[in-house]
C-alpha cells in the first residue's frame, strides 16, 4: 500500500494502461469486451471478478496481446501492445485458465518449470527450478510426467513456472479453480508476500473472492467494467 501511495499520480508507475479497448472474437458479432479503460499502477494487487462469460479472460489476453483489440490503445509496462508484445511479455508471468494436459504428454515437471526461463534469457538449473517448486510446496513433483498429475497439481506447477520468471507483473487466470482450500491459502500467502516484499504487480481473475487484501476489485459483466 505504501509503495502504491507514494507512486500515485506518477505517470511512469502506470504499468498497465487501457484506453477504450474493445475485443471481439472472429465470427462473433458482439464484442467480448467493450470500451474498457483502465489503469493499473506498479505494485497494485488487483482482483478482476464477475460471472462466467463476463469477459475476464478476454481482458487478460487482450492486455497480454494474445488477442488483438479492434479499437483502443493498450500499454503494458510502457510498451505498445500488441506491437511490442514480445518485449513486454518477458517481464510477465502468466497462468492460463483451465490448463490441463492429458496423460502421456512427453514432459516432466522439471521441463515445464524450466520452460519459464526459455524466453527471458536465463539458464534453467536444478537450483532455480527447485526454488520455484518449493514456493508452491510441490518439490516432490520434480520428476513426475506433467500429464500424470491432478489438475490442482498441474496448476501449482504452472504457478511455479510463472513465479520462476521473477516477473514484474503476474497475470493469473482463475488460479484457484482446481486447488484445494489449503493450497489456496498457501498461494494467497505467497502472492501477498510477493506483492509486499518485491512490489510485484498482480492481476488475479477469479469468480470467487480469495482471502487477499486487494488494493482494488474490478467487477465485470457483459464485457464491461461495472465498478473498479
Amino acid at each position: 500500500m505504501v509503495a502504491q501511495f507514494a507512486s500515485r499520480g506518477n505517470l511512469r508507475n502506470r504499468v498497465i494502461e487501457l484506453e477504450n479497448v474493445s475485443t471481439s472474437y472472429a465470427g462473433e458479432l458482439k464484442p467480448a469486451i467493450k470500451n474498457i479503460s483502465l489503469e493499473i499502477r506498479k505494485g497494485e494487487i488487483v482482483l478482476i471478478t464477475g460471472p462466467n462469460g463476463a469477459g475476464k479472460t478476454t481482458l487478460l489476453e487482450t492486455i497480454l496481446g494474445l488477442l488483438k483489440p479492434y479499437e483502443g490503445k493498450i500499454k503494458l509496462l510502457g510498451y505498445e501492445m500488441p506491437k511490442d508484445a514480445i518485449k513486454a511479455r518477458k517481464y510477465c508471468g502468466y497462468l492460463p485458465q483451465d490448463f490441463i494436459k492429458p496423460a502421456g504428454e512427453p514432459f516432466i515437471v522439471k521441463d515445464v518449470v524450466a520452460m519459464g526461463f526459455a524466453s527471458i534469457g536465463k539458464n534453467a538449473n536444478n537450483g532455480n527450478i527447485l526454488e520455484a517448486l518449493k514456493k508452491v510446496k510441490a518439490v516432490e513433483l520434480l520428476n513426475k510426467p506433467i500429464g500424470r498429475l491432478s489438475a490442482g497439481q498441474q496448476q501449482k506447477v504452472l504457478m511455479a513456472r510463472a513465479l520462476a520468471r521473477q516477473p514484474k507483473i503476474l497475470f493469473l487466470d482463475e488460479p484457484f479453480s482446481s486447488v484445494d482450500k489449503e493450497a489456496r491459502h498457501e498461494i494467497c500467502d505467497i502472492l501477498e508476500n510477493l506483492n509486499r516484499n518485491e512490489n510485484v504487480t498482480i492481476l488475479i481473475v477469479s469468480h470467487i473472492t480469495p482471502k487477499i487484501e486487494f488494493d482494488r476489485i474490478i467487477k465485470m459483466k457483459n464485457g464491461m467494467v461495472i465498478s473498479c
Partner: protein
Amino acid sequence: MLTILIRAFIAAIFAGFLCGLMGVHITRLNLNTVAFSTAHAALAGAALAMFLGMEPSTIGLILAILTALFLGPLADLFHIPFDLFSMSLFSIYTAFAFIFISISPGGVISAQAVSSILWGSILTVTSGYTVFLSILFFLVLIYIIAFFPQLKSLLFDSKLAEAEGINVKAYKYSLMFLSGVTVSLILKLVGGFLVFSLLFIPAASAFLLSENIKLILCFSAILGSFSAVGGIFLSLLLDLPTGACIVLMATFILIISAVYAHFFGRLRK
C-alpha cells in the same frame, strides 16, 4: 553401381534423420499439412518444367522451397487457418501438375518422368544431392540444438510459450520452412506419395516408445534412418519400388514399437 549404392545409403541415413526430427515437430504443432502442400508444389514445379522443357527436379525444388517459405506468413496475412490454406494449395498444385502433364509435348515420356517423382528412385541420387541433404541435416541439427529450450516450450504449449514472450510465429515459420525443404528434397529418394510416411511413421513410433521429448526426437531420428536404410536394402533384395519398401520398413517398426509399448510401457528418462 557400388558408388551409387553407397551414395544412396548415405542419403537415406540423412533423409531418415531429417524426417524423424521434423516429423516430431510438425506433428506436435499440428503443421502436418505443410508436407502435403510442399510435396505437391515440387510435383507441379516439375510438371511445369517438363512443359517448358527445363530440368524438372530443380524447378520443383524451387517452387517447393518458395511454398514452404511463404505458406505460414501468407496464411497469417490473409487470416486464413493454416491447414485450410495449405490443403487448398495442395489441390491447386495437383491440378496444375495434371494440366501441365497433359499439355506437355510427348505426354507419355513426361508421365514417366513424373512417375519417378511420385515413386522415388535411388538411381537419381547424385553426389551433389547427398551433399545438399547432409548440409540440410546439419542446419536442422544446429537449429534444434541452439533453440531447444524455446522449441521445447513451443512443443509443450504454444499459447503459453507465446504469452511468455517466445516468438512463436518465427519458430513456426522456420519449422515449416525446414520441413518443407526436407520434404521436397527427400521426394527424389522416396517419392511424392510416400515421403509422408517417412515423416510421420517414425515420429509415431517414437511417441509410443517414450514419454520424454528429447528421447522421442532421438528415437524418431534413428528409426527414420533405420526405415530408410532398411527400406532401400529391402527394395534391392526383392526388386521392389524404394518408397514402398521404406514404408513397409517404417510400418514394421511402428508395429514393434506398439507391441513393446503395450508390454513394457513408455520410457520416461
